[in-house]
């Protein structure tokens, strides 16, 4: 317990979290501090590329086993399942319309890659190893939740979803999924020697760039919170805090079931607990235009993301450690 407290405190006072807090505070105080769109996108391309390569190299190094296939399927199942739980909870806990509830639920079934990156930074700092292919699991979990949400809508008839084949290609070929999977493949092919050539770029500055990126996310989250005061409160707010705990519990069970390591289980919890704010928002705008994007985004980025960053990650790690031993 004490160790967990220390870990939480350490985590809270890490440059990564403090950078996010700085951004959040600056935006709430209405500072004009802002990152150009191109710089934010550039940082996210860098992070996806670097994390993909690292994952692929880890797989290349440790050899490959059936576990990868099982983990991918397990991740996809989690991503497809969580929206149903989320949707049911939202219908009970909040007054959101069917469309809005389905859109929010899709975000929570999918994953937030920055939360994943922050968690793997914490694991690295603690010297806890994890399966390199968790990056591929993250990529595999991006899309199934969208399918579930669209199916929910079509069943409930809550205002026709605009699906179609086009949409599916778009989701599967979403830039962030392609970059993550592609970089993973590159890492796998080039292996440790290939990575050594570009290590000074993809490893050394990684954490620093993550800080700046989280500073920007803090700014965007703060701006979102400021503008949608009122829409996210009461039941909706509570959902943003409870849903990650439910997701993490499911992730824990599945991780134990398929026999992931301590690090891998923690990351699966983090993935299940996190909510998307890149791939799913775009897909929802296309498929469910009637859903209010501000609700999902504020909840995912303004509530669940900071919750996971500050409390969630150390909590999930502590629970996993208590069960799996360290």
């Amino acid at each position, binding site marked *: 317990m004490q160790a967990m407290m220390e870990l939480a405190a350490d985590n809270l006072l890490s440059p990564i979290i403090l950078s996010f807090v700085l951004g959040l505070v600056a935006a709430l105080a209405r500072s004009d501090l*802002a*990152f*150009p*769109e191109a710089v*934010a*996108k550039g940082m*996210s391309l860098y992070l996806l590329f670097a994390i993909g390569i690292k994952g692929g190299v880890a797989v290349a190094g440790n050899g490959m086993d059936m576990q990868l296939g099982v983990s991918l399927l397990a991740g996809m199942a989690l991503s497809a399942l969580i929206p149903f739980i989320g949707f049911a909870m939202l219908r009970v806990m909040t007054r959101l319309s069917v469309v809005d509830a389905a859109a929010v639920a899709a975000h929570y079934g999918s994953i937030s890659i920055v939360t994943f990156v922050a968690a793997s930074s914490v694991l690295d700092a603690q010297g806890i190893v994890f399966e390199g292919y968790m990056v591929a699991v993250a990529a595999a979990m991006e899309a199934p939740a969208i399918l579930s949400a669209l199916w929910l809508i079509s069943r409930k008839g809550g205002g026709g979803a*605009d699906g179609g084949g*086009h949409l599916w290609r778009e989701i599967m070929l979403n830039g*962030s999924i392609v970059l993550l999977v592609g970089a993973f493949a590159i890492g796998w092919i080039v292996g440790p020697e290939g990575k050594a050539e570009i290590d000074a770029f993809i490893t050394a500055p990684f954490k620093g760039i993550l800080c700046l990126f989280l500073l*920007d*996310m803090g*700014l*965007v989250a703060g*701006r979102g919170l400021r*503008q*949608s005061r009122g829409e996210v409160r009461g039941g909706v707010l509570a959902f943003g805090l409870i849903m990650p705990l439910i997701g993490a519990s499911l992730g824990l069970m599945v991780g134990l079931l398929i026999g992931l390591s301590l690090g891998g289980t923690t990351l699966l919890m983090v993935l299940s607990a996190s909510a998307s*704010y*890149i*791939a799913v*928002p*775009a897909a929802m*705008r*296309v498929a469910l*235009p*009637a859903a*209010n*994007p*501000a609700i999902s985004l504020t909840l995912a980025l303004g509530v669940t993301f900071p919750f996971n960053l500050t409390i969630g990650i150390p909590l999930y790690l502590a629970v996993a450690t208590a069960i799996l031993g360290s």
Partner: protein
Amino acid sequence: MQMHEAKRVEIIIEAVMEGRLTAALQKAGVTGYTVLPVMGGAGRSGEWSREGQIGRSGMVAVVCLIRPERLESLLEAAFAVVERHIGVVSVSDTKVVRAERF
């Protein structure tokens, strides 16, 4: 200089819909269009800004110059896309040179 009557259609629409809109415009026989970036704005769905955003968020402005007689089919094609989406369509009278291009 000899000028010809034309219409300037300006469609402000979510960036995720850009591809669908321009495909619809081309299907409707539009010979050209220009896409301008949008930094931010406000409407019934609140204020937004592109600053610091990742992903294909925000809106774009698609400007289309066409001959007056093609307006109706363009608007129908555009509306099929825009209809259920956040967006604004405006049509102004304008004049162009080299009318054979439009």
